């Protein structure tokens, strides 16, 4: 069952430029376990979309199957949603995006949904640089089937059942970088200060934007010995720097400290301000990003923040040279060549 949130709100809730309060971006009451990291990520999505003043009905939220994939019910209640088939969300988004290039596609997946059953579709969506935000709610285990290890569980990490995972982990940001991803970030469900600007940047990015969010499973994988527990992640996360997202229409007012900082203007005119960047990371250089990621992994740390961004990203519509008008808006006049053409084709077949 889905339960709707009560409609009454504090009268002084702040509204965005569309006149919407944050409540207008919320969804049904979550049925996930109390304290689940996924609910925090849903909250971050709500905040990012509210602050960016996106029209909720111009967002499509899509998912596969699993705890993570249930989450889209719990945010953006005015948006169309599609809870598809296990591991197959990327293909559904690909088709949807081809049909209408004007909507924002927000894909939500989990570690099982992405790194196991959906690995093929994930990698190919990355390769095609499909214009979408792809959030992995990564808890290292299968929650809905009661806690089996997933393919992102670190080797040696033990879930509640106690047996250390004997297999090496799939690192999604590392994999995405190798596949040519144009926006790669990692974050932690417990760090909204980092996650919200990353989601905003991912939305503004034209192309495939991966955010791998470590999101502890409070029921099956939040114990001592797990590398995806709240405690472990808090102790071992290492940020690449801080990210500040400035939408196109806003003036840059914040003053940034001197030091290692970078500024990126995204295709929609918004600006990404990267501050206190790690000395050895150039987020515009794929090789540098890969090295930083690998060094952090070897050191037993979890590298978070914006890891890589390609400023000259070309998405699948650019490559396919599709019409700038959404394909789903074309009519008979645009699409049907008429009988006269057919008469000529017939003549060539005699």
């Amino acid at each position, binding site marked *: 069952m889905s339960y709707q949130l009560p409609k009454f709100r504090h009268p002084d809730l702040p509204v965005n430029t569309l006149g919407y309060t944050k409540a207008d971006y919320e969804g049904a009451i979550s049925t996930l376990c109390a304290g689940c990291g996924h609910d925090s990520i849903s909250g971050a999505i709500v905040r990012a979309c509210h602050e960016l003043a996106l029209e*909720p009905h111009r967002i499509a939220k899509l998912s596969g199957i699993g705890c993570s994939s249930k989450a889209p019910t719990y945010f953006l209640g005015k948006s169309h949603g599609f809870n598809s088939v296990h591991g197959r969300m990327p293909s559904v*988004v690909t088709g949807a995006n081809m049909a209408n290039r004007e909507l924002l596609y927000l894909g939500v997946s989990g570690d099982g949904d992405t790194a196991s059953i959906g690995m093929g579709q994930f990698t190919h969506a990355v390769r095609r640089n499909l214009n979408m935000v792809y959030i992995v709610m990564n808890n290292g285990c299968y929650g809905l089937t009661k806690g089996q290890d997933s393919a992102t569980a670190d080797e040696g990490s033990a879930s509640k059942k106690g047996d250390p995972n004997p297999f090496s982990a799939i690192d999604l940001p590392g994999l995405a970088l190798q596949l040519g991803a144009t926006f790669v970030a990692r974050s932690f469900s417990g760090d909204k200060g980092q996650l919200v600007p990353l989601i905003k940047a991912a939305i503004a990015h034209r192309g495939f934007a991966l955010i791998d969010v470590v999101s502890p499973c409070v029921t099956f994988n939040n114990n001592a010995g797990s590398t995806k527990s709240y405690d472990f992640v808090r102790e071992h996360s290492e940020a690449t720097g801080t990210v500040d997202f400035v939408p196109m229409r806003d003036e840059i007012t914040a003053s940034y400290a001197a030091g290692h900082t970078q500024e990126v203007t995204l295709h929609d005119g918004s600006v990404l301000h990267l501050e206190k960047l790690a000395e050895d990371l150039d987020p515009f250089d794929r090789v540098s990003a890969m090295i930083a990621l690998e060094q952090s992994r070897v050191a037993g740390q979890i590298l978070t923040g914006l890891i890589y961004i390609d400023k000259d990203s070309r998405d699948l519509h650019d490559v396919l040279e599709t019409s700038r008008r959404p394909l789903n808006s074309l009519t008979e006049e645009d*699409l049907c060549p008429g009988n006269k053409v*057919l008469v000529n084709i017939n003549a060539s077949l005699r």
Partner: protein
Amino acid sequence: MQALQAVNEFVIKFANVNGTGSASANNLFAKAVFRMGLPVCPKNIFPSNIQGLPTWYEVRVSERGYLGRRGGVDIMLSVNPQSMPQDIQELEPGGYFIYDNTKPLDLRLIRSDVNIMGIPLTRICNEQYQDPRQRQLFRNVIYVGALAALLDMDFAVLTGLVEDQFKGKDKLILPNIQALELGYQYATENFDCPIGIRLRKSDRVGDNILLDGNTALGLGAIYGGATVAAWYPITPSTSVVDAFEKYAKRLRIDPGTGRRNYAIVQAEDELAAIGMVVGASWNGARAFTATSGPGLSLMSEFLGLAYFAEIPTVLFDVQRAGPSTGMPTRTQQSDILSAAYASHGDTKQVLLFPATPKECFDFGALSFDLAERLQTPIILMTDLDLGMNDNMSPPLVWEDDRRYDRGKVLTAAQLDEMERFGRYLDVDGDAICYRTIPGTHPEKGAFFTRGTSRDEYAVYTEKGEEYEKNMHRLMAKWETIKQWVPAPIETPSDRETDTAILFFGTSEESAMEARDYLAEEGIPLAAMRVRAFPFNDEVEEFIARHERVFVIEQNRDAQLRTLLMAEFELGPDKLKSVLCFDGNPISARNIRKQILLQMPGYNVTPLRRERVVAGAEMNS
């Protein structure tokens, strides 16, 4: 020895080596016959191979207009030593075996009851050409030239065709005509031309065209307004998307911007291909995929989602011989059951069965209207025989005032006037509900599409009665669908009969020819061609009207018969099977024989199916 005598009624088969350019020469022959005003039916019988293995091209010429496989071969043109032992055995007594005698024929192969004619094709080429590739290519053109003399063909038709074929590459025209002349000259100098089988100009072609079903399907998708094609390469369906792309490049470029009014995505596998179609259709575009048996298996999970969540989905299945990889370059109609009930759980899928390229075009375009009107997958079931062979077909026609039927899609204005939108609410009583396209309205019409159970307002529920109600509505929709799919075509017998034949797709031509044979032998048969599943009421009435009905199909397990029995709850006695599944298109002689064997009084011992199947193999 008797030599076969025939004018404009015969079967010629070419035996070649794959990858030697024989296809275009053989095609030249078939098209020349067609241009002489004669109905023609060429069939490629090719291996799963790019170069080196034996390949055949069988051409049925029939002034009477029989376009199916007849069975048997009257002229064998064999230039492949690998297959000669088999080729010469296939000939009818009195037939003609024309072969490359640069190397002498193995004496053990010689049959005393056929006419053996040698043409030193390799030697002629070696004398005429220096370039090895030319030697190989022109060898094929030379035997077409020889056939022109042997069969008394109109040589001007051949030269005209060569000129058409190489328009724009004019320097290739003369060498090809010279090669034709070389063959023609050799035949007239060395044989008594024409032989007993000959061609005479006729006027039996009318305004028909020669076209393969896959190209017609690709064109149907263009005319039907498809904008998204997602696919994974698989024989024999690949040329559907190839054709779509070819015509899209010509007909779908926006004149103002030069950008494309279509998107073709080559997917990573068939699971992704159908997922893309589902996503695009959900988002309001017309989308399709094309595949064959193995792809259909992979797509079945998504087909269940599309059935249950009621998402328009168009799938073209070009069937080949299964199971598994089976015989990937040979034809069958063996995906019927797996398509009809595709996916786990209780599902029923709409199937369309075209029989001609024109129907491929018509049904191809219609699929998009039906998918949106009925909000369910439409699976068009064609096969390798129809898809990859040139078939004589009525010309393609499009009514210019035809509008696309987008079905029940709510606009923002309509949503404004509504109290509450219910995605799965049966408002009109036809069990088809209203849908919305994402992004339509700021406040209304958004819902969660899902494969899990939900109520009429698309809200997740695990209440058994809500689930059951929805499943019952889907069955009620199945009844509505019967009124929308193409009706069967019935051909009554001109004499009273209690026996009928029933078939679909590419069995039509051979079935109707066999029916003529049997009528001459005193067995009149009523006939019905089924064109869709769910079966229309006419199909049930037709079966009820007859004592026995032979269901003719190209698979081992009598899949259409099983489907008829299951859907109409018929007992096993009424429907008899006529089957062919050796990978070749079913032939008229085969059908006649299988029907005769099962007619009361024609056979004393009751037949088990194994016996019938053995008969099929003997005479396919």
